[in-house]
């Protein structure tokens, strides 16, 4: 780094002399701005300049905590899972044929037999499944369930590589809902944001997406984690209606060759688990009795987008 020109008035000889004043000035140069910024960060007041919020010094750990503290259902979900585990165990005492993979509160895999649960709601639904690449795998076992239970799978909307932002910040979802008029929606997303730590932004987007469902009953299916996430599951769970979020994390699903997506068998096990959860504890229930036959011909329309080419907003 070169020294500035001596021609400038600021660089007269007297100023260039070493002086303790400059150390003091340096002290002020760091202490005053940082202390002011801290004072601003400690208060609840938020300033905006030209509509842009002036951010505060934040500790990421606290940010996550804040989001989690806002999200009391986190504990509820554990409670729900506990109840669910109990229900499953109760059911097991009566039946023991079909395979259900579901994680209990301690995240241990519980492989359970499960069958013959009663289907109270026999309404035939127009089902739509929307999501990222995992939706493209899950739609096939869902197709089997729909055919066996008399529902119509009207659209499988697969938006590869998409994140919550693509779904929330575009009008794509609203448009397909308007066009296909589903009476029940499966939302499957999150695989592309397991690494995400900007949870505040994603929470806002997730809330927006939940609003876009506009009263249509839905099941929000969490991503099949291939790595530990940084809280995206909790963010989605907090955004979804109480009892409508299916926490996939903890399920041990066979994976495909890329190590990330479930294999065909994995998708089938996943769908079986969702169906069981749907019957036992989901808020919006539809009939999803386990199909006797598998691999029905897929007649639903599949719409495929790629976030790399179409971001949506």
């Amino acid at each position: 780094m070169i020294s500035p020109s001596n021609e400038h008035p600021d660089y007269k000889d007297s100023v260039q002399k070493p002086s303790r004043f400059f150390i003091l000035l340096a002290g002020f140069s760091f202490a005053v701005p940082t202390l002011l910024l801290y004072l601003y960060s400690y208060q609840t007041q938020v300033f905006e300049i030209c509509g842009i919020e002036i951010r505060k010094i934040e500790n990421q750990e606290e940010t996550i905590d804040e989001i989690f503290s806002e999200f009391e259902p986190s504990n509820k979900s554990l409670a729900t899972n506990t109840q669910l585990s109990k229900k499953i165990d109760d059911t097991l005492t009566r039946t023991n044929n079909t395979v259900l993979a579901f994680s209990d509160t301690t995240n241990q895999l519980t492989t359970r037999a499960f069958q013959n649960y009663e289907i109270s709601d026999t309404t035939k639904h127009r089902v739509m499944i929307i999501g990222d690449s995992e939706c493209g795998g899950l739609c096939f076992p869902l197709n089997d369930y729909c055919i066996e239970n008399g529902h119509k799978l009207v659209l499988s909307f697969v938006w590869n590589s998409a994140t919550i932002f693509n779904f929330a910040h575009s009008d794509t979802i609203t448009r397909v809902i308007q066009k296909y008029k589903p009476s029940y929606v499966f939302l499957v997303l999150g695989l592309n944001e397991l690494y995400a730590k900007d949870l505040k932004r994603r929470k806002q987007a997730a809330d927006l997406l939940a609003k876009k469902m506009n009263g249509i009953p839905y099941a929000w299916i969490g991503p099949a984690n291939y790595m530990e996430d940084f809280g995206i599951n909790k963010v989605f769970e907090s955004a979804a209606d109480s009892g409508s979020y299916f926490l996939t994390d903890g399920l041990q699903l066979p994976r495909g060759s890329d190590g990330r997506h479930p294999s065909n068998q994995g998708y089938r096990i996943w769908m079986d688990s969702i169906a069981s959860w749907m019957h036992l504890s989901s808020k919006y229930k539809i009939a999803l009795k386990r199909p006797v036959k598998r691999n029905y011909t897929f007649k639903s329309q599949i719409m495929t987008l790629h976030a790399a080419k179409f971001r949506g907003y």
Partner: protein
Amino acid sequence: MLLNSVDIDMQNPFWLNIFKVETLKEWFAYSTTEPWFFTEFSFLAVFGIFLMIYSLLAKANTWRKIYIILFSIFFYYKSSGPFLGLFVLMIVSDYLFALAIHNKQGLTKKILLWLSLSYSLSFLLYFKYANFFIQNFNQLLDTSFTEHDLFLPIGISFYTFQSISYLVDVYKKEIPPTKNIIDYAFYMTFFPHLVAGPIVRAKDFLPQIVYPQIINASLYKESILRIIIGLLKKLFIADYLAKYVDIIHQTPSGFSGGENLLSMYAYSFQIYFDFSGYSDIAIGIALLLGYRLKENFENPYTATNITEFWRKWHISLSNWLRDYVYIPLGGNRKGVFNTYLFLLVTMLVGGFWHGADWRFVFWGFAHGLALIFHKVWKQFFPHATKKWYAQAFSVLLTFHFVGFCWIFFRASSFNSAFTSIQQILFNTQWQDFIGFWYSRPEICYVLLIAFFILFIPVKIKELIFSKIQLLPTITWILWVMIALQIIIQFKDEVVQPFIYFQF
């Protein structure tokens, strides 16, 4: 509305939080998992107050040294807690060993040197490499020795190398041993270089302790500018790139060849901006205190060959390895074959120094081979062409070789590294890059900015810096304030630890 304030909470005045007992306890607690970084705003605030008091002591050399030592010890304690005792023990023993070495002659002197070196190295070997040796021993001989639950004290690799350089220099009579333990403690604990370098040599630094400087206006501005630039490098570029690199290296097989290739570029930029950012902050802080640390980087990615790269990359380490490993082994004095062999051994030591893992050894080995190859090449083609396209090709080739080696440096395992390379070689398509542009625009922008900063001519950079330094001195508080707010505004929510902290 230009300025809009909302949500004023009059019930809970903000300043009350600062004086809570919990807040104060937090200030004086240490955390080995969350070291006190230069990038922490709490550090900058405390450092500012520290400087104000320092300005009162600056003319009393002994007091200023004691004051800096105490602050350095607190700085180290914040990240290492009880391991501070180990560090102090090493300082005292080095000081005594150096005096003893200086006073003895012949065989006794040599024995004392080896004893002192073994003693200094024993800490590093135990904490950093014990488990590595146990693992390999178990695998090799099918034994089952239990691994130790070890925490690597922060900065141990750096201060051990400093300790070695001091002891060897005293042995060779290049410098006299310090008579005053305060001087030696100052050299070792000086907080700007304590935890992640640059590796400071006693012969460069000790004279500055005896005749300390006080800054003037231009040094004040240069220091502040260096610190701000360092923060920007780290928080704007390195941390954003780290996010992308982390995703890819989690499961490289799940991403296309193009994405793996871009992660190689991203990591090459990340590690440079991370470490050179740290070095900039360290140099800036030291300068404010009146001490000049040597430059650690000189545009390394513009090197036209691997030898030049190592003259420009992590200069303090390269020089250390040259002076304390390569030359003592024999350097180029024992024939061509031995020269190559010593070069390879030196780079293997360099690789192993970075971490107790075969990946680092391989990384060092690859660089060693490349250095040998370049030496052989120069034998056959001693006059390199100066034509621009040849230079550009050489820069690209060197950069890609270095980037390729970084894959092993960053990957979580050899398998992961090979998968990434396999993806790059066999699964790369043009569409990957178009997709990348659309799906990760922020990473594209950061990559482009990083590329621009790296390859912009030095003269233009210097011109820009000199223009900035013309801003009136008294206004610099305001500029710092604006710069810090811009950093808060745009930095990633998660500040990554400096990469070299782990070494």
